[in-house]
């Protein structure tokens, strides 16, 4: 893309994109650390995740402020306008992602006080790795402005749903087997739900990238994992 005639305008747009990428990096780290804190029963790490969330909130406000300023002062159109709008939308998704990571860390703190539940936390870890990877892929796609890469993330959201559903069944089996695990399993279930929603934010981001680059609204039916096709479907959550 050619340079803007007014260089400062181009610089401001680039700065906005760079800040979203930075915010994405932090959100990604928050998710990975939150999942690690669950797997390793690492109280210090969980606390760090909870504390760091304020930084994501501040970055979100900052990006929004800068985007509003750019829209007011530069009146961007076409691809520039989409870039400014996309930065605001991504900041919202990343801020929500951070909130969900914080929530996982808070639950990790509670779980750390009880008995270890190795096989279950390992399942959370696996799902966490998958979701982190998708978040990283979609943010890489944003930084590189690659539609295909973003769409690859969008097209595979059913993997996360599938993971979530199998974890749901696993937890249910545990709780039925030993009601004393209900408290811990409920926390784990919320963690799984949080991870699933982080996955949804990653697909939102993919849609935003698609719009930013192509100028077309993304219209498509997301591949949904159908619980009716799976064994034990009668106890699936959705």
């Amino acid at each position, binding site marked *: *893309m*050619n*340079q*803007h*005639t*007014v260089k400062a*305008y181009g610089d401001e747009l680039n700065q906005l994109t760079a800040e979203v990428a930075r915010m994405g990096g932090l959100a990604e780290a928050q998710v990975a650390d939150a999942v690690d804190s669950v797997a390793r029963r690492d109280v210090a790490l969980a606390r760090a995740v909870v504390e760091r969330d304020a930084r994501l909130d501040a970055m979100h406000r900052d990006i929004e402020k800068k985007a509003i300023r750019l829209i007011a002062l530069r*009146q*961007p*159109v*076409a*691809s*520039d*306008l989409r870039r400014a709008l996309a930065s605001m939308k991504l900041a919202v998704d990343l801020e929500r992602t951070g909130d969900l990571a914080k929530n996982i860390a808070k639950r990790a703190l509670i779980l750390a006080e009880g008995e270890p539940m190795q096989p279950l936390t390992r399942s959370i870890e696996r799902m966490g790795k998958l979701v982190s990877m998708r978040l990283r892929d979609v943010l890489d796609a944003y930084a590189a402005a690659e539609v295909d890469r973003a769409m690859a993330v969008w097209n595979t959201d059913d993997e996360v749903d599938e993971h979530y559903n199998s974890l749901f069944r696993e937890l249910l089996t545990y709780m039925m087997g030993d009601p004393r695990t209900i408290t811990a399993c409920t926390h784990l279930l919320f963690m799984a739900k949080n991870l699933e929603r982080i996955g949804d934010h990653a697909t939102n981001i993919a849609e935003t990238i698609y719009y930013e680059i192509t*100028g*077309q609204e993304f219209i498509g039916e997301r591949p949904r994992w159908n619980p009716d096709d799976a064994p034990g479907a009668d106890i699936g959550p959705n």
Partner: protein
Amino acid sequence: MKFNILRAPDGTESSAGASPVMAAPTAAHAASPVGPTKIQARDVSVFYGDKQALYEVSLDIPDKTVTALIGPSGCGKSTFLRTMNRMNDTISHCRVTGRIEMDGEDINARTVDPVLLRARVGMVFQKPNPFPKTIYENVAYGPRIHGLASSKAELDATVEASLKRAGLWEEVADRLHSPGTGLSGGQQQRLVIARAIAVEPEVILMDEPCSALDPIATAKIEELIDELRERYCIVIVTHSMAQAARVSQRTAFFHLGRLVETGDTEEIFTNPRERRTLDYITGRFG
């Protein structure tokens, strides 16, 4: 009717059919419907002596619509605008080739009187240019020389209606016989528009009509353009991209004497097809 020399004999709009040049407006733009084709330009080239200023421009201008012509200085947009009421005839070394039809008739045909053509195709310039006469006389001049009013009362009514339509009546009703040049810049521009519409034109060409005006006077002209759109085919040349986006339904982008892209204004300003258009509207012209 007095100005029917160019109309198709059967009164139909002979050029309203499908055009290969300008696609039909999209359904998404239904909120501001685009009228049938009023002016059809085909392979229009303009030469000033040896220098070619415009290269084979083909463009359909729809009726009851504002079409904005945008592009950097020297891109040919004003040159193209001037071909539509044969203003280039007045420049001795200027030559126009190609065909321009209004309602299906060649406006460059030998049988067409350019004076009558210009009554049908009015023009508003960058700088307001009222005659050094009274406000009343400025507006009454056209109808009088074209014999559009048979009595003083009829002429008074035409002057009042034109000033009202130009949104100027309330500001000048009590001083119709003061000089038009005593008005403010924005008022003068609206006076000139009143003068143009007094002869019941079908097309109004505007060449940067707001570039000499402050933002409030500009807003009034833009509001006026939006109202006039219901009755006239309007073509506006503007350097202000924001103005093109605000007032027009169709936009044509010119560069280096060529028509690069044309389409619904909404499309041009959100997702243009051509790279050069994108570069221009986003301020990336190198």
